[in-house]
């Protein structure tokens, strides 16, 4: 029985590869876009304009506070009622990018706020403009705080990308559901799905740990 199931599973490997491909490509594109957008939002959020800052805050709350499934449904199924017709892949990328940007915005804000005010004052005192202060002084220092959780967030987003199967994309999780119909051993099938995610995510987690250790060492880690 197990033997037969394994055979059947091996037969499904092209499907599995395609699913893994969709997961990786979708995540990659959204993470790159989401990072750019997230940094933009984070910088605006700390920029001192109350109105912009509050608007971004409200948007981030809305996205953090509602299920991703609903967000993706609204983009794919409800936007057409306003004349915006998107294919599933584009809708998935938009939804995931937006989600990523909101989480990354929070990380960036925390990073920027962690830079001592003295640094900003030193930059102010030497006449650097707003953008120069951000670019030359604040952001490079904020990166120490930002990088480890940023990479950690990537892992979460890659896993969240499985929700796109709701709008008809065949990602890795979806492949699991399809295969389990032929091979009625959910344990085995979803173990393999888990393994697929592990292969993608584990290197990122290692990277996050290494970054954390490097940045931590620079600040002198505490021993208990």
């Amino acid at each position: 029985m197990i033997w037969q199931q394994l055979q059947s599973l091996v037969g499904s490997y092209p499907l599995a590869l395609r699913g893994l491909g969709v997961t990786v490509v979708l995540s990659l594109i959204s993470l790159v876009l989401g990072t750019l957008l997230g940094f933009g939002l984070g910088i605006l959020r700390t920029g001192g304009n109350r109105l912009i800052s509050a608007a971004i805050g409200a948007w981030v709350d809305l996205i953090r506070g509602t299920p991703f499934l609903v967000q993706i449904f609204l983009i794919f199924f409800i936007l057409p009622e306003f004349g915006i017709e998107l294919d599933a892949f584009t809708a998935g990328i938009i939804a995931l990018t937006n989600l990523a940007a909101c989480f990354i915005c929070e990380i960036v804000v925390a990073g920027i706020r962690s830079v001592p005010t003295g640094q900003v004052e030193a930059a102010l005192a030497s006449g650097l403009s707003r953008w120069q202060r951000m670019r030359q002084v604040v952001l490079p220092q904020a990166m120490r705080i930002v990088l480890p959780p940023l990479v950690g967030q990537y892992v979460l987003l890659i896993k969240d990308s499985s929700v796109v199967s709701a709008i008809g994309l065949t990602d890795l999780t979806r492949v699991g559901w399809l295969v389990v119909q032929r091979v009625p051993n959910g344990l085995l099938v979803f173990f393999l799905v888990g393994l697929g995610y592990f292969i993608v995510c584990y290197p990122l987690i290692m990277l996050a740990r290494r970054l954390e250790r490097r940045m931590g060492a620079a600040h002198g880690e505490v021993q208990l």
Partner: protein
Amino acid sequence: MTASPSKNGTGMIEFRGVNKWFGALNVLRDITLSVEPREVVVVCGPSGSGKSTLIRCINGLETIRDGDLVVDGQRLGDPATNMTRLRTEIGFVFQSFNLYPHRTALENVTLAPIHVRKIPRNEAEQAGRELLAKVGLADKVHAYPAQLSGGQQQRVAIARCLGMRPKIMLFDEPTSALDPEMISEVLDVMVAVAEEGMTMMVVTHEMGFARKVAQRVVFMDAGAIVESGTPEEFFSQPKTDRSRAFLSKILRH
């Protein structure tokens, strides 16, 4: 009691009836003070008396509520005054150095000249090396702040200000975060800067420095200038009880 402003208002720094509040707290009370070009003024007084606030106002790190503050002929708070430009004329040395930790000593010194003054990189670096040599750090050009002692960091901070060729230098307790042995390294550099004719305001309790180079000592308490005079006058015959008590405490040990 206030320090006499120069009548015609030609001072490099001119406070005229300046007041500042933090919430309900009146941290600067009716400050009137004029600093002439090339003058060195030492500001002292108890903690919380408003010394830092006073000099932070000068380059606009704090804004004032009423009164006039004119620096290098330009009125602060005036829409016509370009603060970013004015700040390039004013160097500020912080108690905690505030060097950019992700940049080497040389990069700290050249960052503003390159990006603000738009000086070509190699020229700026040339000038930066000379400045670092001047403060005795020719061999630390490529060191990061974390690799420098406190005294060395503060000297880089001074070089960083000098790199912008400012007309005025402000110092906020530049030696109080330093180890005793390193204080003199920094004071020596400051004396050298003063002797080249820089206009300086220095918040410090290093009375030796005040005696050596200050033309005037200003004593503040509770946001007001309580006393002001030459170092000799101030140290030998403090006029108020408050300044006498203060001097007795800081000079005792």
